[in-house]
């Protein structure tokens, strides 16, 4: 029993760390540009498929190569999508709803393209690191450890980027005061695109990491979109710290509910907790209105 509970806690932590990475990406775009991206989950699947493609190329079988190739690809793709699909809408009064619609269209387009290109069958990816570490009855796989380290590492890199680089600071500036950002000469449009690109990378990397554990399917991203969304709303949309806490809380909740009641209840439990939280704090754990 105790071993099982520890297992559940660990799996909650591991999933929580990847969710944190992905939820932070979602909250970042929302915080900076107030745009909501319905295709977020499709970028998750894209990460998984990219990894599968790269790994199934005969001469490559290293995850290092996967990251080296996939990250810039996702970055460029995210940037272009923002520039071509979201930016033109921003001039309109009703751009918020139009952005939701166009990204929903994009999600449909991408998901079904995966299905045509890769087939409906799920793809499995090799483990990033084989083997496991055990103390008595208790076992933790190296794979889990690496996933955890990489997710936390990704969040730390983002933190460093936002706090210490010029572009990162300009991202925060736009989030906090777009008019002020314009006054000091920050090119807002570029920041919007860059943020979108960064968030695409974050969810794509999340896809690469989780694909080893959960397979890649054409529509697997929806689950991730909804979970990231619940996490960001729970933590307060636009608040990075809120999303971090929320990711671990909800990751843990998911692990326990899934273990005790079955996976069917996970989403229901997540939404129940979210609704209860929003009923008390409509702005989420740490969010502000805006």
């Amino acid at each position: 029993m105790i071993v099982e509970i520890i297992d559940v806690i660990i799996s909650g932590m591991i999933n929580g760390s990847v969710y944190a990475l992905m939820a932070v990406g979602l909250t970042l775009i929302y915080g900076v540009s107030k745009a909501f991206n319905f295709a977020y989950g499709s970028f998750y699947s894209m990460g998984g498929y990219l990894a599968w493609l790269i790994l199934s190329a005969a001469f490559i079988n290293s995850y290092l190569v996967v990251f080296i190739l996939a990250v810039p690809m996702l970055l460029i793709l995210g940037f272009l999508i923002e520039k071509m699909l979201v930016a033109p809408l921003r001039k309109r009064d009703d751009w918020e709803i139009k952005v939701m619609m166009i990204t929903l269209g994009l999600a449909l387009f991408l998901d079904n393209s995966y299905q045509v290109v890769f087939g409906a069958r799920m793809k499995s990816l090799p483990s990033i690191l084989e083997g496991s570490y055990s103390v008595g009855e208790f076992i933790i796989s190296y794979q889990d450890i690496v996933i955890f380290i990489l997710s936390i590492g990704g969040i730390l890199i983002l933190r460093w980027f936002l706090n210490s680089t010029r572009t990162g600071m300009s991202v925060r500036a736009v989030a906090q005061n777009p008019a002020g950002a314009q006054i000091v000469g920050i090119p807002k449009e570029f920041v919007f695109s860059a943020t979108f690109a960064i968030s695409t990378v974050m969810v794509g990397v999340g896809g690469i990491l989780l694909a080893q554990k959960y397979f890649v399917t054409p529509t697997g991203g929806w689950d991730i979109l909804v979970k990231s969304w619940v996490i960001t709303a729970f933590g307060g949309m636009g608040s990075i710290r809120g999303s971090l806490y929320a990711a671990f809380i909800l990751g843990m909740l998911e692990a326990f509910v899934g273990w005790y009641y079955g996976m069917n209840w996970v989403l229901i439990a997540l939404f129940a907790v979210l609704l209860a939280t929003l009923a008390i704090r409509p702005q989420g754990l740490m969010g502000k209105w805006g």
Partner: protein
Amino acid sequence: MLEIKNITKKFGALTAVNNLSFNVQKGDVFGIAGPNGAGKSTLYNLITGLYPFEGSIRFNGQELRGMLPHRIAKLGIARTFQIPQTFPSLTVEAGIGIGNYFGSQDGFDSSYVDQILKFVNLDKKRNHKTGQLNLLDKKMLMIGAALATKPKILMLDEPMAGSNSKEIISLMDLIKRINQDMGIAIIIIEHFMKVLTELTRKLLIIQTGTEICCGDPVEVTSNPKVIECYLGSSGDGQITTSENSNSEIHIGEKNAEKNLTGSNHAGGK
């Protein structure tokens, strides 16, 4: 009619309204002035139920604290805003109709809407979309919609801002008619001292949320403390229209309250 007792409003560390008390009687014209950021608009927001506060506001004996804005509107307190608020998707007539249908205790009466349209001189533009109106007409529409709720008190927030001297005269005339012909009490925030001294019977000066002095407008404007707060010690004894403010057009900024706190936007920390 309106009794305000010891109301205080804090935004975090900033005290926007600090322990203010005053009364407005039936048929009164009550003026409020003070430098920008003094908390005048916040005071209006408290009276109309937009923010919670400490203290007590009674209207005809009824406590307004904790009451929702639309209830307060229905009780007979109407207001305008510093930055003209209109409904760009609606016609002039529909905008005024909103006030009458939802705000008036007597229910909707299209002949009353007609009357108001004439009163604010918009009956020829009744089918225009409000986005197409000029600044003065927008203000008129805002006043008209407020009047359509058949208020007992009308609270005007800097009605003269952005108007030329001719428009100011016609607006002053309109305010007098609202007060005298319709018997509606008026509270007015204004920077033009001449408007205040001519219209009001009682004048309240506030600075950083606190009362500086309150009383007869002529006496108030010659109070050295008031002159100091407007001009600094080097003042020559005459009140000018020095400070102000927000109805200047901002890029992407609408909420006057934001200027108070200085921290405008939701932050991604």
